[in-house]
């Protein structure tokens, strides 16, 4: 994976690793990251990732044809860049899958061209 560019500026990031919820200050100072306010190593790692390249697992549903249910819950098998979630959701919205489906089936390969697939979260039999 290529080196990700460190964004400019600073951000207040609320850490979600444990319920303490430390407010971590992350700042880009001449290409170096200053991180303060965390209480543990995991928090520092989270804050860094969140500042440089925030990612999220996408969990939604896809329309199904001829299925026991009209929708099947799905998720991305890897976290997606946060700023591209809307795009991914659009591609998912226009997709329809035929039943039967097994949990783990890849329903959309390389969603919006990213290195991540949309997979089924459950089995779904035909109607």
């Amino acid at each position, binding site marked *: 994976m290529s080196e990700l560019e460190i964004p400019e500026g600073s951000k207040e990031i*609320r850490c*979600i690793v444990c319920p303490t919820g430390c407010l971590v200050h992350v700042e880009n100072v001449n290409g170096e990251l200053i991180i303060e306010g965390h209480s543990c190593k995991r928090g520092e790692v989270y804050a860094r990732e969140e500042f440089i390249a925030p990612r999220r697992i996408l*969990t939604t549903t896809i329309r199904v044809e001829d299925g*026991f249910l009209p*929708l099947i819950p799905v*998720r991305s098998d890897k976290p997606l860049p946060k700023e591209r*979630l809307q795009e991914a959701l659009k591609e998912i919205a226009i997709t329809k899958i035929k039943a039967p489906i097994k949990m783990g089936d890849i329903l959309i390969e390389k969603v919006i061209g990213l290195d991540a697939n949309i997979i089924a979260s*459950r089995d779904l039999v035909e109607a």
Partner: protein
Amino acid sequence: MNSYEVDVVVIGGGSAGLAAAIVVKKAKLNVLILERDKELGGITLQCIHNGFGLHEFEEELTGPEYVQRFINQVKELEIPFKLDTMVIEFTAEKIVYAVNNKEGLIEIKAKAIILAMGCRERTRGAINMPGFRPAGIYTAGQAQRFVNIEGYLPGRSYVILGSGDIGMIMARRLTWEGCKVKAVVEILPYVSGLIRNQVQCLEDYGIPLITSYTVTKIHGRDRVKGVTISKVDRNFDRVIGSEKFIECDTLLLSVGLIPENELTREAGAKISEMGGPIVDNNLETTLNGVFACGNVLQVHDLVDLVTAEAKRAGLNAVEYIKSRYGKEEEEVGSIKCTSGENVGYVKPDLIPKSELEKDIIFTFRVKKPDRRIQIQFKDENNKILYKKKRRYVIPSEMLELKLNLSDLQIDTTSKKIIIEVIPRLEVLIEED
């Protein structure tokens, strides 16, 4: 009328029921699951977000993925189950009556029953909310069912009352389906659910979290047109003059969950104040051979803990059948477990004196969040049996501790123990 005899009947085919049934089947007893919906899985099926399975499987799964694993095991183990089947009654003698449209009325004689009926949502009427009664008012779980399972949207623009996890998860879910969530309104001065959800469901999407406010009026006669929210003071009374109007066409209520114990009550089991049956350390209710686990016993936050509790209930039901079923029950005194300072409730409600030698899993919740506290178990004479420090406690996180009271030198003539959560002594000294 179809009559069956089984060793164990499990009422409810959700996460709790499935885990309990699997344990019973593995112990080579015969078990039957009765489920009212058209497929197994319960409420976990509609929780399509992730965050499940970290304890049970050491993986992060979505709700459906989590419960699918148990459904697969049920099928592999060939555990019989009935769908679209509603239990209408069970008796203290462990006879269960259920109906479905294929068999008619079904009578099942069981040696033990495991209750796993889950919980329902608190409604608008239950919180005495005034206003019109237009279309467009849902509980968060109802909306979740429509959006994720039935395939329909309740509305276009939303206000969500209650910042519990269900409310926040739905805020994100609806945003991801193109709807507009105008605000999440919370009556307490702090967010009610996990910080993780506050960040990933609200802050990520610029959805305001308005704390110390509640909905005081619903506008719109035919369909919701908006809500008025008002600030509340420390006594949760409305602050006059603080009203704000938010336009929306749907109001979602995420204002609490209540264990569903109508059947349990009618069977004659004693129900505790927080709505779940009174149980001992074996999760046995006040009816012999009737056990309870999952949300029907106490509302859980993590399905992993539901699974763990259900496995225990299953094992205890098996043990009951092997060593106590059909025999005369002995009268044994018990120790009551009561809540002390800042504790909302404790399970188990009581421990028979004959069980004091065992390791006991206590689960409890605090009433108010606090930092740098000490959990204390003491007897009625204030003798401290056990204490444990914690950095923080919040009501939305159920706490669990495994203790052996005998090892802790409990006085066997004790009538009760008290669990409390208090600020640490050293903290008090610091603040002087």
